[in-house]
């Protein structure tokens, strides 16, 4: 229908619902026709998820920015005595959420944090438990594969035991961060001190076995090759074939400002961001939801991404810190009205959901 001859084969496969190969993925990254890519991804999105666009009204709780891992792409983590280092005690965390819960529509919490040099697993667990005790009606999503691997290491427990304890303390879904690029080459260079590719995957796999859904993500636009992006997507696709436990996939463009890589790496363009979302939608044929995370993409890109295969725009986040430390220029929170307007302008139906994509409210008209 739209494409040049070169892409006819891939187009046929997409319309037939056939799985794309690694070669197809690499070819898609060479495609210069952004409208065609968008159309293909939009077609698949339409088939799979219809016109509903999910968002959530949530509050991000970043318990501490003190982190032993020193990942090169991170502008959030600090040493204990660095300027701006903080660590919330139980009361601090509760105070933050009490403030956020003045919004009657607040549905849940997103809890991700640094790997604090002195905290034990109990310290994290205790804070989670306290949040759950005081706010039993807020859903709890949190802790990335990286944090959970770290908890297992410092507690001597197995990943499965750690997950069970978190689950008992109220955790309902695992955050998708920390996947970065699941390649040992990239990780050795950028984040050698945190969970390896295999460990990250193991956490997801174990969580799925316990019935805990997870998100998955990709941090792109740093030192990875386009082939490595494709391989990353295929790794997630394989995992999903095996377990089916990934709920949503999130693309994070790397924001170089304020990180160690800032001098050598240029920020990705809107062009790259949109094709990466479209290609993710096309390659990840077994993951239902693709999130356009506005905090990182900026609102304009996230809105257009709804035409490039995304069906989730994330939340009206209450105070986001991690990415703003990295120089994200988007506002720190978006009102629900604004999110609804953004989704409607794109001709789609806004639906507020919880961390497991249960719809809480829709605005159909």
């Amino acid at each position, binding site marked *: 229908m*739209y494409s040049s001859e070169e892409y006819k084969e891939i187009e046929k496969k997409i319309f037939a619902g056939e799985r794309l190969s690694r070669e197809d993925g690499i070819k898609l990254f060479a495609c*210069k*026709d*952004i*409208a*065609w890519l*968008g*159309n293909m991804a*939009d077609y698949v999105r339409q088939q799979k998820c219809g016109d509903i666009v999910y968002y959530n009204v949530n509050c991000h709780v970043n318990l501490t920015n003190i982190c032993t891992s020193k990942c090169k792409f991170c502008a959030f983590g600090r040493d204990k005595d660095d300027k701006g280092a903080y660590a919330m005690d139980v009361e601090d965390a509760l105070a933050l959420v009490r403030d956020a819960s003045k919004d009657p529509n607040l549905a849940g919490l997103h809890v991700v944090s640094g790997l604090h040099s002195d905290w034990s697993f109990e310290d994290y667990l205790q804070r989670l438990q306290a949040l759950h005790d005081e706010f039993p009606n807020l859903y709890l999503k949190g802790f990335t594969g990286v944090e959970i691997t770290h908890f297992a290491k410092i507690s001597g427990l197995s990943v499965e035991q750690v997950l069970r304890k978190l689950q008992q303390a109220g955790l309902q879904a695992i955050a998708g961060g920390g996947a970065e690029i699941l390649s040992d080459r990239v990780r050795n260079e950028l984040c050698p001190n945190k969970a390896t590719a295999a460990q990250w995957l193991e956490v997801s796999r174990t969580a799925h076995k316990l019935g805990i859904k997870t998100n998955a993500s990709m941090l792109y636009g740093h030192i990875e090759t386009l082939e490595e992006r494709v391989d990353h997507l295929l790794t997630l696709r394989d995992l999903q074939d095996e377990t089916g436990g990934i709920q949503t996939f999130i693309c994070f463009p790397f924001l170089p400002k304020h990180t160690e890589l800032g001098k050598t790496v240029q920020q990705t*363009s*809107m*062009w*790259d961001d*949109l094709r990466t979302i479209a290609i993710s939608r096309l390659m990840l044929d077994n993951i239902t939801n693709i999130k356009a995370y506005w905090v990182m993409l*900026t*609102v*304009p*890109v996230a*809105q*257009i991404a*709804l*035409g*490039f295969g995304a069906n989730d725009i994330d939340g009206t986040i209450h105070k986001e810190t991690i990415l703003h430390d990295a120089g994200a220029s988007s506002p720190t929170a978006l009102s629900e009205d604004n999110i609804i*307007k*953004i989704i409607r*302008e*794109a*001709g789609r139906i806004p639906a507020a959901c919880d961390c497991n994509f249960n719809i809480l409210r829709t605005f159909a008209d």
Partner: protein
Amino acid sequence: MIKELILQAREKANAGLRLNLQEALALYEDNDLLFLADCARRMKEKKSGRQVFYNVNKHINLTNICTSGCPLCAFQKKEGEPGGFVLEETDIAKILEEAKVTRNLGEIHIVSALHPDKPFEYYLNVVKQVRQALPQVDIKAFTPVEIVHFSQMTGKSIKEVLEILQKAGLSSLPGGGAEILSDRVREIICPKKATTVQWIETIKTAHKLGIRTNCTMMYGHIETIEERLQHLFTLRDIQDETGGFQAFVSFPFHPANTGLDYLKRVGSWEDMKMMALSRLILDNVDHIKAFWIMLTMPIAQLALGFGADDLDGTIGEEKIIHAAGANTGRGITRSKLRQLITEAGFEPVERDTFYHPVETGEEAVK
């Protein structure tokens, strides 16, 4: 909207056929952004292949002191209000000194407010001064709104005003101030400046004198969608008659600091949709410009996939739009522009005002 109409409109858009207002409205309602992008891209390729143009230009705003008081405007100051400025001959001489050493400078772009006291001679002398300092550079100056103002001030006809400016060295008109060519809309957003009829008359007169112009649209304020699309058809009709438009430029309305600041800036979705729809409706206009200063560079780059084929220039200093709260950078280098175009899969071409390619001595960045 009836289904058949949408289908018919899609078929015509897909085939690159001329649309009518009803069909354009149907495509707007249909809201299939990537379909529009695809059709627009093909129409762009018919006109300019894989080329994307930019030029090296310099913007000069002579004054921001204005008698017109348009509610849509964040640039204007009243006389005596802090922040008001008027450039005098020596100020302009300084700017021109800088311009002389700008490599490959192709165009000086002059637009200003309607100053209460400055006579037509003031503006005329600026043109002469620029022409003398930079004999090879194209002078793109004065919107129809300003030309009408000159005509009213001097009692001369629009044609006479244009002829005098042309003789002094004016090469083309920027085509701003069109906003939405509807009396209802203008009554609300800019009641005191050139009317629809005057804007059109000025443009047609310029075209008849061999002065090429751009045409523009400012959307996303109080206009209805029908008024917005009708505006594009008005421009298309003029172009059928005169053929004098070189490029179309659209501006999303930035409400901050204007008399309409209760409005919200439309989203990027709307920007891209209008980009593609204008490419499709204005089938007789060669170039569609993504004015990055207004859109921000990321969106302007994206617009290349939605039918735009011109990224405007490596602008030195721009005051009007920044007064309205655009948070874009104030200038961009040639190599950065070329890189953005290449990244989007197009071939960068440095051009003069009339879209002739000029030698840059630079390879497209791979």
